[in-house]
C-alpha cells in the first residue's frame, strides 16, 4: 500500500471514528437494545435448557451469541447513515473533486464500524460473563470472540455503505433495518438448529448464514475450540465483507459518474 493511500485511509478513518464517538445516538442503542433483549430472553427462556438435547444448562450462555449479531446489524445502519448524510450534504461530491481513491474512502468509512465492533464486543462479553455466562474456550476464546465480532460488524458495515451509495438517502438505509432483522429472526437465534421442530423454519434456518455466525460464537462459549465452526463463522464474515465491498465499490463508481 502506498503512503498516499495509507494517509488517505488514515484521515478518513480518524474522521469516521470521531464521528461515531461523538454520536451517542449511534453507540447507546447498539449497546442497550441487545443487552435488554439478552436479559429478557435469558430470563424468559431459561426453561428451554430442560429440552432433551439442549447443549448447555445455561440459557444465558447459549443466547449470549445473539447480541453480537444484533450489534452488527446496527453497524449497517450507522455506517450507511453516516455515508448517506455525506451524500445528502454534498460532502461526497467535494471528496470526489480531490484525488482521493475509492478504496480509501470505503476503507476509511469502515473505521467507525470497527470501533463500534470493539466497544460492542467488550460490552456484551463483559456483561454476559458478569451475569454468569460460561466461556468454555477460556481467555483466548475471549480474544477470538472479539475478533469474530469485529469481523462481522465490519462486514455488515459494507452493506450499509453499499445501501447508502446505491440509494443516497439515510431514510432508505434506515428502512433496511427490518430486512436484516428477518435474517436474525429466521435463524437458530433462540434454539439450536436440531431443536427447531417446525420443518419449514428448520429448512430456512439451515441455509441462513446467521445461524452459522451464531454457531461460531456458541462453539467458543459452550464447547471450547471447534475449528470447523470457527472457520465457517470467519469465512461467512469474510464472504459478506468481500461481496459488500465489491458492491459498494461498484455503487461508488456509479455515483461518482452521476456527479
Amino acid at each position, binding site marked *: 500500500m502506498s503512503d498516499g493511500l495509507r494517509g488517505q485511509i488514515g484521515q478518513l478513518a480518524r474522521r469516521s471514528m470521531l464521528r461515531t464517538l461523538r454520536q451517542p445516538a449511534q453507540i447507546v*442503542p447498539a449497546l442497550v437494545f441487545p443487552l*435488554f*433483549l439478552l436479559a*429478557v*430472553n435469558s*430470563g*424468559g*427462556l*431459561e*426453561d*428451554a435448557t*430442560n*429440552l432433551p438435547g439442549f447443549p448447555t444448562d445455561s440459557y444465558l450462555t447459549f443466547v449470549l451469541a445473539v447480541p453480537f449479531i444484533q450489534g452488527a446489524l446496527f453497524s449497517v445502519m450507522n455506517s450507511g447513515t453516516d455515508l448517506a448524510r455525506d451524500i445528502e450534504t454534498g460532502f461526497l461530491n467535494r471528496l470526489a473533486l480531490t484525488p482521493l481513491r475509492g478504496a480509501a474512502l470505503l476503507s476509511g468509512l469502515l473505521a467507525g464500524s470497527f470501533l463500534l465492533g470493539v466497544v460492542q464486543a467488550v460490552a456484551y462479553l463483559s456483561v454476559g460473563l458478569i451475569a454468569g455466562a460460561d466461556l468454555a474456550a477460556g481467555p483466548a476464546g475471549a480474544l477470538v470472540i472479539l475478533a469474530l465480532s469485529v469481523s462481522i460488524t465490519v462486514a455488515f458495515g459494507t452493506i450499509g455503505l453499499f445501501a447508502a451509495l446505491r440509494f443516497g438517502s439515510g431514510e432508505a438505509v434506515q*428502512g433496511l433495518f*427490518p430486512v436484516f*432483522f*428477518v435474517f436474525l*429472526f*429466521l435463524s*437458530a*437465534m*433462540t*434454539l439450536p438448529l436440531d*431443536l*427447531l*421442530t*417446525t420443518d*419449514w*423454519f428448520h429448512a430456512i*434456518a439451515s441455509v441462513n448464514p446467521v445461524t452459522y455466525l451464531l454457531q461460531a460464537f456458541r462453539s467458543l462459549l459452550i464447547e471450547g475450540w471447534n475449528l470447523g465452526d470457527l472457520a465457517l463463522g470467519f469465512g461467512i464474515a469474510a464472504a459478506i465483507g468481500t461481496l459488500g465491498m465489491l458492491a459498494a465499490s461498484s455503487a461508488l463508481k456509479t455515483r461518482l459518474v452521476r456527479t
Partner: protein
Amino acid sequence: MSEQRTAGLAAVARAVAWRSIHNFLTNPAFLMPALLFPLFFFVSFAGGLAAIGEVPGFDFPSGYTAFQFVFVLLQSAAFGGVFTGFAMARDFESGFGRRYMLAASHRSGIVLGYSLAAIFRAFVTWAVLTAVALVAGMEVGGSGGEIVALYALALLVNIAATLWSAGVALRVRSIQGGPLMQFPTFLVLFLAPVYVPLDLLSGWIHAIASINPVTALLEAGRGFISGDPVLVGLAFAIGVALSLLFAAWARGGLRSAEAAG
C-alpha cells in the same frame, strides 16, 4: 350548543383520521412495517420456538402457535399506536400539526382522529396476522364471544398505546421523540411472560412479570383463545384504566402544544 360541539369534534376527527388512513394505505413505507413486523415476530416465535411447547410444565391447551399469537396480537396493537404517534410527531415536526391546531374548531378532535386511524391500521394488521396464523394451523379453542373479547382487549391496548404516544408526540413535537414512545412500550411488553406462562418463569423476570399489568392482559387473552378465560375482569379494568390515564396524558400534551403556539 353541545350538539354543535360534538359535530365540530366529529368533523375534525373525521378529517384527521381520513388523512392519516390515506397516508397509511398509500405509502408503502408506512404500510409494510405495520404488516411485516408482527408477522416476523409471529413467524419467529411460533415457528422458531415451537419446541418450547414441549418443555415440562408447559400445558397450554391450544398449543404454542396460539400461545404466541396472543402476544403478537397485543404487541401489534401497541405498536400500531406507537407508529401512529410517529406519524403525529412527523406532522408536528413538518408544521402540518400546527396547521391542524389553527384550523380545528375542537382540538381534542385531532387526537381523536389519530386514534381512529390507529384503530383502523390495527384492524388491517390483525386481519393479515389472523389469516396467517390460521393458515399456519393455529388451534382456536375459544368460542366466538371469547374471540371477540380477545380482540376487544387488543383494541383497548391499541387505544392506550396511541394515547400514550400522542401525549409524547404533542409534547416533543418532533420525530426525535420516537424512542420515548417506543422504548417504554417495548419494555413493558417484553417484561411480561412472552415465551412461557408466568408459572414457568423464575428469578427477576418472574418478579417483574408478576407486577407487570401486561401479564394480566396476556393471560386473559390466552385464556380467551384457549376457551378457558382467566383474569377477565382484571384485564379489562387494566385496559380501561390505562386508556383513561393516557387520555389525560394526551390531553396534557395537547395543552402543551397549544401553549407552544
